[in-house]
């Protein structure tokens, strides 16, 4: 990973999402974008959004796997249904 800027968006990225930032956020995102070799803070935001979701999914998969290991396959689903039935 270097400091060189490069294209950071897919050519298919045709939609636009407006993001507002405080001065502190602006500074932090711009430095982080540079550090990650991205062309702009916007590219860093897009990357961070995808990373956030990927990590969240990995976390949920790990919890599911752990629950299944404790209660057998489908254990997590069973417990979720039980919780929902209690409400």
């Amino acid at each position, binding site marked *: 990973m270097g400091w060189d800027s490069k294209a950071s968006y897919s050519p298919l990225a045709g*939609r*636009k*999402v*407006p993001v507002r930032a*405080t001065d502190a956020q602006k500074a932090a*995102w711009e430095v982080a974008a540079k550090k990650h070799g991205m062309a702009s803070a916007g590219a860093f935001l*897009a990357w961070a*959004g995808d990373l956030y979701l990927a990590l969240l999914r990995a976390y949920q998969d790990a919890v599911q796997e752990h629950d299944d290991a404790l209660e057998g396959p489908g254990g997590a689903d069973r417990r979720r249904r039980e919780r929902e039935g209690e409400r």
Partner: protein
Amino acid sequence: MKVASYTVHADAQQSVRWNRAAEGEGYASTGAWLAMAADSYLKARARAGMPIPLAWRRGRFRVILEGREAMVSGQMSLPFGTYHGTPSGPIPHGSTKYHSLVYLPTGRIMATFRSARQCKALAAELARLWVRGDGSEPSGNPAPVLPSLPA
């Protein structure tokens, strides 16, 4: 409060997943959710012990050189500054590649490296100690944090 605006480009799939996540997590807009995601990432990095690069700007500051004080030009990110030179003094651009890191409140040179980038990397690490120390100098030892290179 001053607020900046960015436009983030997304493909159709990204747009759908970000919108869904923003709605699911109760954010008023997808932009607000993206801002949270970026801030969360930077906070996680900080918690993981990885230094976050500081934001630098050009400026002039006081430094205690070998036997004298001087004002030098360089880059600043409080409480640190870097300049092109050694503890002997600034070096004309292009002559050698030595760069020194300075603790600005005292003007003390903390280390001398072969690149400004290395100075900035150390400053990012020391910034954590500086914050933990509630603004006190990162090292209690008056000796430089890293041995300086000979001039």
